[in-house]
């Protein structure tokens, strides 16, 4: 019973897991559709959804598939707690619940249009960016040059490796720069931490930066970009917080007066500067 025929926000929809891809030892990507085989809802790049297993818990995850994919949604999820353990143990055909989309999105149709784009991700931080990158690839002619810097602990911890190698790298106008933290057999690419690699690559500040990864990586990458002449109002990031409702009401994900689930998760660094330094 939804009052005034408004969409019911706290009652989820049913989802079915139709495919599970093992990305890394602790990351799996789940494909989710409704029981009648449709996409659960439309979203914009950078938005999130609440996934849940009844009795186990509910949590917010970035939607990693591009909105341009009209068949299904994908979620790349790292195993790091009770719910994600459960999700990782699922088999194809398992039903879950899903509600969303939540939060703002990257300004792909406004600020990004016509710009060169630089995506920088570390580890599972690629998940929220993948949606944007694929969106940009889909509407390739709307944007300028695209650079992607992606690093992880080891080559086995690179999420979406197949897609990166076979699709992104192969696409003209996209430069992919991969790196891993420590040298290992079978890897002939770059070795080193993402912020250092970004410094080495020495990007020209004629583009918009998007950073996502562990807090420490974000911090150092931002300062690396600033040294290259980037200003904070041209760099974006996406945040993570404990969220329960996803609709800016439960009261826990705020930084100052901004609610990460509703006003975020995408923030420009100059916007973050206006907020109290509570979350570092």
């Amino acid at each position, binding site marked *: 019973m939804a009052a005034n025929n408004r969409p019911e926000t706290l009652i989820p929809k049913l989802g079915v897991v139709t495919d599970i891809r093992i990305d890394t030892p602790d990351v799996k990507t789940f494909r989710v559709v409704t029981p009648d085989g449709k996409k659960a809802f439309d979203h914009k790049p950078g938005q999130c959804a609440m996934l849940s297993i009844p009795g186990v818990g509910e949590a917010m995850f970035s939607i990693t598939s591009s909105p341009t994919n009209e068949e299904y949604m994908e979620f790349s999820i790292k195993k790091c707690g009770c719910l994600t*353990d*459960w999700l990782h*143990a*699922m088999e194809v055909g398992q039903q879950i619940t899903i509600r969303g989309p939540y939060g703002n999105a990257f300004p792909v149709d406004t600020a990004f249009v016509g710009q060169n784009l630089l995506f920088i991700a570390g580890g599972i931080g690629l998940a929220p960016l993948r949606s944007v990158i694929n969106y940009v690839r889909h509407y390739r002619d709307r944007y300028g040059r695209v650079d992607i810097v992606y690093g992880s602990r080891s080559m086995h911890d690179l999420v979406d490796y197949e897609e990166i190698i076979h699709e992104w790298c192969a696409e003209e106008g996209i430069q992919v720069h991969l790196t891993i933290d420590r040298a290992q057999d079978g890897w002939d690419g770059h070795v080193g931490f993402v912020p250092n690699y970004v410094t080495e690559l020495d990007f020209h500040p004629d583009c918009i930066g998007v950073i996502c990864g562990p807090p420490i990586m974000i911090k150092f990458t931002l300062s690396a970009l600033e040294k290259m002449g980037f200003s904070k109002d041209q760099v974006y990031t996406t945040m993570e917080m404990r969220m329960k409702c996803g609709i800016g009401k439960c009261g826990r994900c705020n930084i100052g007066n901004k609610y990460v689930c509703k006003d975020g998760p995408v923030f420009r660094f100059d916007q973050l500067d206006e907020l109290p330094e509570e979350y570092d």
Partner: protein
Amino acid sequence: MQRIGVFVCWCGSNIAATVDVHAVAEAARHEPGVVFSTDYQYMCSQAGQNMIIEAVKEHHLTGLVICSCSPRMHEATFRKTAANAGINPYMVEIANIREQCSWVHKDMAAGTEKAIILAKAAIAKVHLNTALTPGESKVTKRALVIGGGIAGIQTALDIAEAGFPVDIVEKEPTIGGKMAQLDKTFPTLDCAACILTPKMVDAAQNENIRIISYAQVEEVGGFVGNFHVKIRKKARFVNEDVCTGCGLCTEKCPQKKVPNAFNLNMDNHRAIYIPFAQAVPKVAVIDPNYCTMLKTGKCGVCAKVCTAGAIDYKQQDQIIEEEYGAIVAATGYNPISVEKFDEFAYSQSKDVITSLEFERLTNAAGPTAGKLLRPSDGEHPHTIVFVQCVGSRCAANAAKGKEYCSKICCMYTAKHAMLVRDKYPDTDVYVFYIDVRTPGKNFDEFYRRAVEEYGVHYIKGMVGKITPENGKLKVQGSDLIADKQLHIDADLVVLAAAIEPDKSARPLATMLTASMDTNDFFTEAHPKLRPVESPTAGIFLSGTCQGPKDIPETVSQASAAAAKVIGLLSKNTLKGNPCVAQSDEWMCNGCSSCANVCPYGAITYENKEFRMPDRSTKVRRIAKVNPAVCQGCGACTVACPSGAMDLNGFKNNQIMAEVDAICK
């Protein structure tokens, strides 16, 4: 999320007759996490076990539920099966649908319903099972025996005979203990020294035995198989390796007024002395409280007369640190102090003596060279009254005395009475008793001889008062059988004082984390089934430190303890039970509740530095469970309010999952 296989056993018709096994298997199949469910005639048979192994492989099972007979029956079997199938043996849970279901419920519907619930409970539990691996620890192949009385000597000898090195720590300058002070032993009346001293010599000569005399345990750390012990060897001011035990110094020492503890202070020895002729080690020792040289720096006679040059006035206490695999407590007993029993006038008259003093008075090596003479005037006593149960079998709330029976007094009093009558037939001997207890081989015969052949007057009753008067001791007592008051003018009164554990036992127990009862006797791990072990693993009990005993009993227990020690030391490593308690160090607040209830002393505390979420560091007191010592009872888990303490195999959430499944 587990992948669970459920296997329902028919046990022939034992289960299948009252439980619909197919229905159980079918119901289990619908439980979350169950990916395979089946039933079979005999799950424990080779074929049944193979079926399990196959299913594990085919369905990649991670947890097994066997609905069968009692886990007490076949849990071990199915754990092995699991191991053979390549999964951890502790990923198995048994639903007992035979003893606790099919055999006790006649109604098929009720039995089936219950079996399904029991299966669901086991499934709920196995969901939360985790792989457990028994911990292993090495065993130091050396034993420590604390106490060098007959108990300690016997234990040490047996262990040494089995080929393991063993140290005896004795607080006196010589081993031998109480038995060395005794004259004759009941019921055979052979001389104590004659049977003890050869054993003392054996101990001294056994190359596997090291005697650390005049020494005390100061610190015990570690756990079963790996004890680390600090022993303080007191300075004797005589070089043990050099002294030949010739005894010249003990004759030349000018300080003659040192009470002779071995003779219960009934005579004196010199400031340098050898406790008794057959002492082991036979090495002199200087009593620093009396030695003029040590007190004033003037004298040095002993050093002058010692041709071996063994005297060393500068000798210091020595600390010996050693690793042991097992520790045996053999700290023995002492008679209680009878001074507080005013009615017996022990403090008022020298002629009221204890039984142990009586032993010394009749011993050929004693202060009277074996002649029975009154301590007050050296006269031969003509009337002797023995009083039994002095301080034994007292009311629980009595201000003095012990609640328990000291066990040995009846027999040694009979022995004393008999010996007196035998040597001095002119002596009248009276024994006041509450009951005469003679449950031992040849004990009752012995006692009856005392009464029948030797004419000892046994009087059932207690002595009310003893009054020294004109060189006599007026003994007032009651004869309960004749129902009259008795007055006996005695020359000598011998009190059969209760025995109590040696005072050194309590601090030792604390160091060993071995439990004691309210009387300070060591508690055994199980009063019937594990009588020579302390609940603390690796600690064994020998002799009267565990409870009153006579010599034969002491020796048998000493050998039993030795057998247990040998069993332990013959292992290279100890494999623990993995179902032990575990403390979550982030949740523990170090309150000590768990350690208070642990019967095994398995819990210790440490101050550990933690890196807090705000990146500061904090030192927190936290509990640590030693898995080698913990036996897995779980008492600590309930004592812990925060739930920081949990028990592997029976975790809080596992039991609650069972509860939930059952009450659903």
